[in-house]
């Protein structure tokens, strides 16, 4: 049902995502629901997530592109803006969403968020506190989690 009447924009975006994937990001639609994407993001270099492969799910709601896609981490990750359910605190996924943005830009923003955690606008209070009080230790934990949960998909 979801595949019938799929807007042209979604088809085009999907084609482009598959033909020219952004570096370190792969996104492919699920076979039975073209609005559901399996996403993998490589941990950016020089971040505590380097070497990790993070799985995410991305869903395009009915109103897309007027409403933001819904994205969630499936791989456990130690990050002040991502909670234990994998929900992401990112402005463009909430009130700053613009229909001019695309799946690609959203995923690039998430990748950037991994490089630059923002403990001042936390989703996970405890991790943010950890990050602010002892960044070196928090980064170690993030690396540890990357090794434990995100190595080799």
């Amino acid at each position, binding site marked *: 049902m979801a595949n019938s009447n799929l807007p042209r*924009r979604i088809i*085009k975006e999907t084609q482009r995502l598959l033909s020219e994937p952004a570096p370190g990001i792969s996104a492919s639609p699920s076979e039975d629901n073209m609005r559901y994407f399996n996403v993998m993001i490589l941990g950016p270099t020089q971040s505590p997530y380097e070497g990790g492969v993070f799985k995410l799910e991305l869903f395009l709601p009915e109103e897309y592109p*007027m409403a933001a896609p819904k994205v969630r981490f499936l791989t456990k990750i130690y990050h002040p803006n991502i909670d234990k359910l994998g929900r992401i605190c990112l402005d463009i996924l909430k009130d700053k969403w613009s229909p001019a943005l695309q799946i690609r830009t959203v995923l690039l923003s998430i990748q950037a968020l991994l490089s630059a955690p923002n403990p001042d606008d936390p989703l996970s209070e405890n991790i943010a506190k950890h990050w602010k009080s002892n960044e070196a230790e928090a980064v170690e934990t993030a690396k540890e989690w990357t090794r434990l949960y995100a190595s080799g998909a």
Partner: protein
Amino acid sequence: MGDFIDSDDDYFDHDSDDDPELPEIDDQGPNEGSVKGNYKRVSLGCAREDLRKVMEVLSLKEHHARTLLIHYRWDVDKLLTVLVEKGKDDLCAKAGVTSGEHDNFVPSKFSSMVMCIVCIEEVPANEVTTMDCGHYFCNSCWTEHFIVKINEGQSKRIRCMEHQCQAICDEAKVRILVNARDPKLAEKFDRFLLESYIEDNRKVKWCPSVPHCGNAIRVDDVELCEVECACGLQFCFSCSSEAHSPCSCLMWELWSKKCRDDSETVNWITVHSKPCPKCHKSVEKNGGCNLVICVCGQAFCWLCGGATGREHTYASIAGHSCGRYKEEKVQKAEHAKRDLLRYIHYHNRYKAHTDSFELETNLKTTIQEKISRLEERESTNKDFSWVTDGLYRLFRSRRILSYSYPFAFYMFGDERFNNQMTKEEREIKKNLFEDQQQQFEANVEKLSSILEEPFDQFSEDKVVKLRMDIINLSTVTDKLCGKLYECIENELLGTLQWSTRNIAPYKSKGVDKASELIVCTDMKLYHTEKDSSKDGMCIITHMPITCVLNLLYVRIYFLFFFPNIVFVEEKLEINNTNKSLKSY
């Protein structure tokens, strides 16, 4: 989701057709041209004054002025202050108003096809709309965007679709595009915009009457005040509940809550009874030992509430031991009992006066009858304003008297000001207050009783005497009431540091009554005389009830389906949370 709202619209529309009290305003003022519906016309009129001012000062277009005013909550003074302090560019940028220099910008004049980056399609250039910020997208995408935003309740500030563009979309363009796809939604959009004048404006409030009289009231001075709507309801402008001075808003909120849930009774029950561990009924101990047997037959220990066997000795209960009797509990019970008695005392007085107030309301008709009977008599005195004045004084005083009891309950209770007064201080203040209150009360009762005299059967001389008595008593009562307020404001509240200590001041002439005043040609406003100065407050009248109900419905609908929307209370200005949808 559109369907959901629409169907309810129909329901309320139908409802309102049968409502004989629904104000008729079709015959008022000139037509607004393209704008349909009474409600809009009236509201547009109210907002127009402010709009015009801003448009003139800043030489802006109407929709830009509206965006600015919505951003600044229709506070023209504040807007102008920002203008002076920060300049026009900053003022506009903050509110999402762009200068409009791209107004006539037509994308790619030379090619007939343009790329819309939202749907990623080539579209004919004439099917593209450019906003004031210069960003253009195809009409179909814009329309989709607007529909989603209107349904999200964001009509007042629909931003441009471009990423990080803060510009607010031109309402005229929104209206045209939405109207082409969904005329009903376009109407809704208009309504949301217009309602903003009332919803977002701290100087304007809906009359809280139920069923709603359709009026909104505007005051010029947002300080604490009580107002009387044209429908007769007196209410507190800051908390929108009934007029409650000399209680502060918080006191009144606590008191009405207490009266509603009888929390003292509940309190007493929790302290003096225990739920049976088997049937969970409340069980009161009627003396004797700590083995209690419920009507259901279950035995349990009074001390810990646990089920026990039925046998006991002086020292222990069969199959049970939970330690010794606790002194603390006795104290707690005594405390609860004292609190309850205290509450009952104040509540009884409060209730008695409210009841009297209601009974005295009937006095109005009887007195009117007596007056007309006297008027028929051949008499030298044809002026009976002394009776009506006296009656008015009685109503006014009775009201204040009844609210003075909940005031005293909180003022001299343990809950609120315990830390700010010593016991002795409190006792002194309490006596002072009670003396004033007592004198005032005695006069109110006297006034009440002489107003009930069958003066239509009196001889001329006796009527003259009664007239003197009533006039004198009214003056004395007024003075005493003023003194009571003086005592409250200076002696009691004046020394405290409590944010809610502010109360609406006493007005000898009574609550400010909104009177009719024609301000704009296409609307009806009311205003009050405030101590002979002009422009006290206005009533914006004739808001069809359907609109209000619809609005309420949309709110509920949003709460229901978008629970993550935050309805934020604006603490400084509006106490009623549910009145304002502020952020999402």
